[in-house]
């Protein structure tokens, strides 16, 4: 569960009355977009590509990198597709009017705490597009695609090109270490009581990343940029939906953890206006073979940070309590941001959010793995 932008949230307005809880899943939303159907059979590489019948779709890569000499970085590369109200014919497909593409890039230099980020907004057309038969999405000079566009395997190699203005650029090869995970029940990940509030949620929960990171030299406008060989681990979500939020939800917290023991964990907590979590909130464990299992969880805020840019106050250190499905024992984990300020201020998307690299420790202080945390709806309720 990720993303939010003013554009996306426009979907909310068109949702109509909340349907009865156990109603049959409708085929379309009231505004004519497709609704994820249980039992959908995915085909690859086709389903890595876009799903223009759905209103919202994103390809979301986050990860941790380290360079020779031990320098560490967190990075985020996100490509959003968002369809406008149905029924608009393109005047000129090079400057399309049916859908728009938003992209976010971010990079954290862990040692210095310097956090760079940039957004791009383009209409579908010559400078932003996604392919329908394979993974090939781009926005300006940024792109994410399959190394071999026809690769049908569950572990295809990906290529990511991104950067932040003239300050940083990266090209990474991402190789899945595990097959694709499909979250949710019967192929559908639920986000609320409304039967349309659901997504197809496809994830590479562990990608080996290798490539080059180019960094402009600080404080010297003419010095040659620094080129670093980097390796690391990344996580990629591909989520497809026509409605992500139900009435009453004000935001969400999302967390992915990659444990050193080869397992992963993903949770989203949908926050309601009264501060409680929506029952659709979920925590899912992924075992070393890629099998998923849900577990109950609670999140406790230990520390807070207030953004000087937006004034929003975000949780900064969290305690996660859940159970280990392997042993059935209780697990208490500390989620610690690698830097306090990893806020994307949302100049284009319209909504600021915090998305950052974290480390995971147990209560004895032992480091268990790395994580990425996303916190939305703290600057303002995600309501329009």
């Amino acid at each position, binding site marked *: 569960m990720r993303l939010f932008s003013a554009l996306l949230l426009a979907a909310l307005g068109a949702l109509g009355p909340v349907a009865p809880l156990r109603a049959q899943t409708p085929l379309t939303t009231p505004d004519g977009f497709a609704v994820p159907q249980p039992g959908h059979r995915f085909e690859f590489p086709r389903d890595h590509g876009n799903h223009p019948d759905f209103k919202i779709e994103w390809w979301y890569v986050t990860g941790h990198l380290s360079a020779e000499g031990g320098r560490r970085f967190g990075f985020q590369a996100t490509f959003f597709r968002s369809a406008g109200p149905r029924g608009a014919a393109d*005047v000129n497909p090079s400057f399309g009017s049916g859908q728009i593409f938003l992209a976010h890039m971010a990079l954290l230099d862990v040692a210095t705490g310097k956090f760079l980020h940039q957004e791009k907004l383009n209409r579908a057309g010559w400078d932003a597009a996604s392919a329908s038969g394979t993974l090939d999405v781009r926005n*300006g000079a940024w792109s994410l695609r399959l190394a071999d566009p026809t690769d049908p395997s569950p572990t295809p190699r990906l290529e990511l090109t991104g950067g932040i*203005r*003239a300050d940083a650029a990266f090209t990474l090869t991402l190789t899945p270490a595990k097959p694709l995970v499909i979250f949710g029940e019967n192929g559908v990940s639920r986000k609320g009581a409304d039967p349309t509030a659901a997504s197809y949620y496809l994830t590479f929960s562990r990608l080996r990343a290798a490539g080059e990171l180019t960094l*402009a*030299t600080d404080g010297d406008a003419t010095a040659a940029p620094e080129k670093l060989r980097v390796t690391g681990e990344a996580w990629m979500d591909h989520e497809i939906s026509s409605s992500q939020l139900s009435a009453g939800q004000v935001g969400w917290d999302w967390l992915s953890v990659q444990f050193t023991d080869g397992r992963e964990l993903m949770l989203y907590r949908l926050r309601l206006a009264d501060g409680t979590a929506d029952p659709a909130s979920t925590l899912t464990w992924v075992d070393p073979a890629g099998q998923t299992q849900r577990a109950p969880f609670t999140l406790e805020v230990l520390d807070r940070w207030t953004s000087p840019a937006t004034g929003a106050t975000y949780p900064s250190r969290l305690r996660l309590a859940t159970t280990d499905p392997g042993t059935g024992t209780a697990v208490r984990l500390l989620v610690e941001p690698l830097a306090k300020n990893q806020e994307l201020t949302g100049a*284009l998307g319209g909504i600021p959010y915090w998305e950052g690299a974290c480390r995971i420790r147990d209560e004895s202080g032992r480091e268990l793995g790395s994580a990425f945390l996303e916190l939305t709806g703290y600057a303002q309720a995600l309501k329009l």
Partner: protein
Amino acid sequence: MGTLETLLLRRCSLRHWRMAPRQSLLLVGILALGVAVFVAVRLANHAAVASFTHFTDTLTGQSDWIIQPAAGTLPESVLPELRAALGPRPVHLFPVVESTAARVRRTDESANFGRTTYTLLGVDLVAVANLARAQTPNAAYFGQTTGDPADFWAAFRAGPQIWLSRAFAATLGDARTLDLVINEQVHALPIAGLIPTAKDAPRVPANLILLDLPQLQLLAGKPGRLDRVEFLVEPGPRADERRDELRALLEQLGATGERWTVTSPGARRETAATMTRAFRLNLTVLSLIALLVGLYLIFQALDGAVVRRRSEIAILRSLGVEEGTIRRAWLAEAAVLGLLGGAFGLLLGWAGAQLSVRAVGQTVNALYYATTVESAGLDAGEIALGLLLGLVASLVAGWWPAREAARTPPAQVLVRSAVAAPGHVALRSAWLGVALVAAGVLCAQLPPVRFAGGGRFPLAGYLAAFLWIFGGGVLCGFLLPAVARLTRRARTSSAVARVALSHLAAPSGRHRLAVAALLCAIGMTAGMAILVASFETTVRGWVQRSLQADLYISSNGAQSASSQNRLSPPVWRALATHPAVAEASVLSAYPIELDRTPTILTGADLRVVRARSDLPWVQPPLDDAVFDAARNATLVLASESFCERFRKKRGDTVRVPTPAGPQVLTLAGVYADYGNERGSLLVERARLVTWFGDDYAANVSLFLRAGADAEGLRTELLARHPGLAIYTNAALRTEILRIFRQTFSITYALEVIGVAVAVIGLALTLSSVLLDRREELTTLRALGFARREIALATAVEGTTLAACAVAGGLTLSLALGWLLIHVINKQSFGWTLGFALPWGQLAALAVTVVATGAAVSYAVGRWGADLPADREE
């Protein structure tokens, strides 16, 4: 300045100016006028250039590079190609479509010329948000102003709609739509809002109208095409290096097939500046003349003051005040006057600029490019320049009088009549006059100064004009004794005439100067009149010969050189095949750049052109091949201005850029075209259709079947196509001549001013002369001369001066007319004009000057007759 000078200034000069406030005011006024004209023209010029707006600046900030084709438009396919070639480089690509539009003409508006041309700018309204300027917090961009997502989508999905500048929107009240003529269609476009701007963005030009790019592509008839692509390098580290690298890459990509040239907003502005440089320099020369005339009047006035205050100076001298001190005091006085005049001149000039700026802007609009001139600003530099100008002018003009003042002998030896008038030495050398005229003849042979961008300035030509004016002024002084001798031989018995002529037989420097100034004014005025008359006669003949069709049709929005409104193929075909039409001549026109110099490539059915109109040849084609579509594939005709601008002649080859690659064409002939000064090339229209891949027409001329009613057909076609401008033959001829007269209307004002100033100068001269002759006047009175007789004598003196000046001035005007027509005009614009003399106008000028000269000198004589014998004033 020493205390003595200060004291002198306070005690003598100030007292003097207080006692004769009207004179001081006049002096400051004259100076102010001279400075004002110069400042006004300069400010207007400035504004005309500054207003060449690179329209995208307001939205994007300054682009780093622009690619644009030398001819035609770019296909959209260059965009993905460029993005791929740029790879991961952080560069914003900003495609732009630009066109023009006009408001629908009201039925009571006959004039097409001078209406505002609106620039339609088509940009990607979504991508604009990515630029640094839009990303600054709270910067408004399209559809995000309200925060309602529906508005965001509506901004580029709700069909064609327009965003306006605040200034323009304010003139429309609460109108929801705006009727615009784009090509030949009238569109009622919904007004979506105001063009959003960031704080540091340049002000939105009033005539800018913004649309979403794909919508403008359709409206302007350019589907899938772009006028240019702009590039913004992401700011940050190594920006200069990345900028240079980008330029090299773009140049390399564009070089294949000569698809585009790489330029920058600065270079585009520079091109605009050079395009109009010659025009602006011509205006500046005219304004300098005003300053020169002012200088002359100041000189006369200060000279008069020296004469009047001579006894006062003589007393100071006898009190032991040094020559140098007196001189400095006079110069200081002149400087104070100069600063005052300069300051008033600035105010006046600024006010004048507000008026003239529109006129200059209109001319620039008609001849060169779309400007948005609205007001002319006065900055510190201009203020300093205005004051300096006033100061220098008054010091220069005050130099001789100050020297005269300083040379005043002490009171004991003061003998009024012994004092020589200033400036006489140079004026008394006939050789100097002959030498000046000869130097002028040499200068008239020199070629113009050439600027990048095709501009030419006839520097030597203007120099020749100045030399002839000065030479003529010097020589004309010799007319005075000659005339005096002649009339004396006629044995006048009238004492009045004898007294008057005795002064002219040995003319003083003042006399000579007055004649020279009058001669200069008359020469320039009459010379200008000759130019205008010749121009008008030539244009009239050209119009007569080349306009043969019955109806002329273009877009109602086509009204200036910058207009891009055209006729779409279905519309011009419908016009051409109307049953009442016997034959149609279709003209296409594309702005192109040859060697980075803008010019126009036109196409017509050359067979029809030859059969139907009499092209005024400068160099006719040597054989008929050029008129035969089967044989003219590599031939081209060029206008005379084109040949002047690009230094080509019949038989030369031209490499013409087209979207289908460069074409090497041979100049088969040269025709006269007084329509534009950028020059034009004419080829078979079918070739243009192939090269440019579109079939739009710039205008259509219809030849009707015998018996068809042109006026009736015009009404019928207008009813069917309200976006067209249709002229009958007679109406178009009238319109062209009207535009012509409008263009030259300023010269008539200059003529009146020139003559008025010269006559005032004459009056000032005569009053100085009379002051100088106070003792003589006393004697005359003692001899029984009546006031009337003294006045008459002065009138004879003044009239003779005026008559001599008119004789010399008219002679000079013939020379200046020739120079203006064959050197200055030819070098600036490349137009050959036939010499025509406006007899009536010249005669009227001569009579007016002599008559007003007589009247003014009679009045001065009356005043002189009342002068007391030997008391100051």
